[in-house]
């Protein structure tokens, strides 16, 4: 199992030597996960808030559906997205297959249920007295919503981190939709899959460690933000 040790050395070498292939994969990963996170947070937080805060008919069913979608396998999402953006598919004319935005669409679908479900849970678990408190201090309906969202910020941050973890680490969508094209859509995870297939276990480990390093950076930044 000396490839573990070699993997660690390789990771350091790749980072220090500025290996262009590695940095291209890192850039692709960061870019695509940023797109996906931005889109899923922008859509997921309001939807999750509505699901957790408002009482409307069909809410339980919607909640059940979202919770079920948490278990969507990434390869399945990849296939679904492929079916839509393949040139033969309904969105084929947009030319999204084998592009980073294409992957981002799939990853958005992956992250969206996570963001919605966890935001809804965070909002639901707010103290029942919060509403009374805000109303009693004179908040109108809009101010009540804004303050509730802000009070739930720690839960929502946790939702974002959780979704980010899923997006960063998924390989099924990136492989299926992105095609693992070198210099273009090769992400860290598809690169790991490729290196593993090639039997370059040390290289796979190295890339895995780099992914972990990025995840650490993001998480650390978030927890700093949370500390404020």
């Amino acid at each position, binding site marked *: 199992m000396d490839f573990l040790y070699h993997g660690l050395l390789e990771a350091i070498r790749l980072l220090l030597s500025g290996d262009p292939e590695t940095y291209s994969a890192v850039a692709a990963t960061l870019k695509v996960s940023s*797109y996906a996170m*931005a*889109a899923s947070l*922008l*859509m997921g*937080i*309001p939807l999750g808030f509505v699901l957790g805060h408002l009482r409307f008919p069909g809410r339980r069913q919607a909640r059940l559906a979202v919770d079920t979608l948490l278990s969507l396998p990434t390869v399945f999402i990849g296939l679904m997205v492929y079916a839509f953006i*393949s*040139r*033969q*598919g309904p969105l*084929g*004319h*947009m*030319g*999204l*297959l*084998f*592009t980073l*935005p*294409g992957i*981002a669409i799939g990853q958005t679908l992956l992250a969206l249920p996570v963001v919605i479900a966890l935001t809804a849970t965070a909002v639901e678990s707010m103290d029942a007295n919060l509403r009374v408190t805000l109303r009693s201090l004179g908040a109108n309906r*809009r101010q009540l919503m*804004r*303050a509730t*969202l*802000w009070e739930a*910020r720690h839960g929502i941050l946790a939702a974002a981190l959780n979704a980010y973890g899923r997006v960063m680490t998924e390989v099924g969508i990136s492989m299926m939709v992105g*095609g*693992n*094209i*070198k210099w*273009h859509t090769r992400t860290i995870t598809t690169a790991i899959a*490729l290196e*593993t*297939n*090639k*039997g*370059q276990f040390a290289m796979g480990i190295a890339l895995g460690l780099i992914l972990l390093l990025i995840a650490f950076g993001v998480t650390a930044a978030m927890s700093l933000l949370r500390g404020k």
Partner: protein
Amino acid sequence: MKGTGSPAKGFILLIALLALMFGAAWAAEPQAVMMATTTSTDDTGLLDYLAPHFKTATGYELRWTATGTGKALELGKNCDVDVLLVHAPKAEMKFVEEGNGINRTLVMYNDFVITGPAADPAGIKGKTVAEALSAIAAKKSPFVSRGDNSGTHKMEQELWTASNLPLPEKESWYISTGQGMLVTINVAAEKNGYTLTDRGTYIKYESDKAGKAPQVILVEGDAPLLNQYSVIEVNPKRCAKVNNMLAHQFAVWVTGPQAQKLIQEFKLMGKPLFTPNAKR
């Protein structure tokens, strides 16, 4: 209250973001030929070696996605790629017959070999393919298959049939990995079994193990083991969106004298991998 935008503001941001995402995709439609190919051409580094030469010769970029032959053909059928470089002659011919591809041209071949443990428990060393497979089946020695509908897997299935043996898919000694070639060789090594592999991947495997490879070549050179690669242009009459001009450019180039010479010269660990055989 900072840090939380109003829904309206969020919506505008979302639109802006989507515009940014798709705008980038629309704006930069580069002059690149999109190819689906098999893992063997990518894993061996052949395409990394050829692509810059293609760029210099034609000015076009070569992009490829490396998958099993099955998925590569499916991508072609769905008009998602311009050109294919694959190695499953029967499936390719069917693909062309069904009107999915045009101008199928031979490019090169490498060969398959049957590898196994050096101890060779079934005693197949130096035999023909038919004899070797019979011996493995008779001895019930573990046989590790790709099982992923790849070109190699298809070749293996054809070899069992050509040797007048039933497909041993349900046998307990027949192990289907559903994974890539190198993984499959490693599984064979772990199981002390036999497997069918292309020579290029084996050379890579052998050099990775630095002279201590548990799997060795036992059967080679037999005619049925020839592994023919062809280039196929995706039919532009079926797929209006494919860039047949580029596909054709690549097909012509890769079967032309410059590329054929490059393929001849391509070596992995000092050993040639592919034999060019384009008839142009």
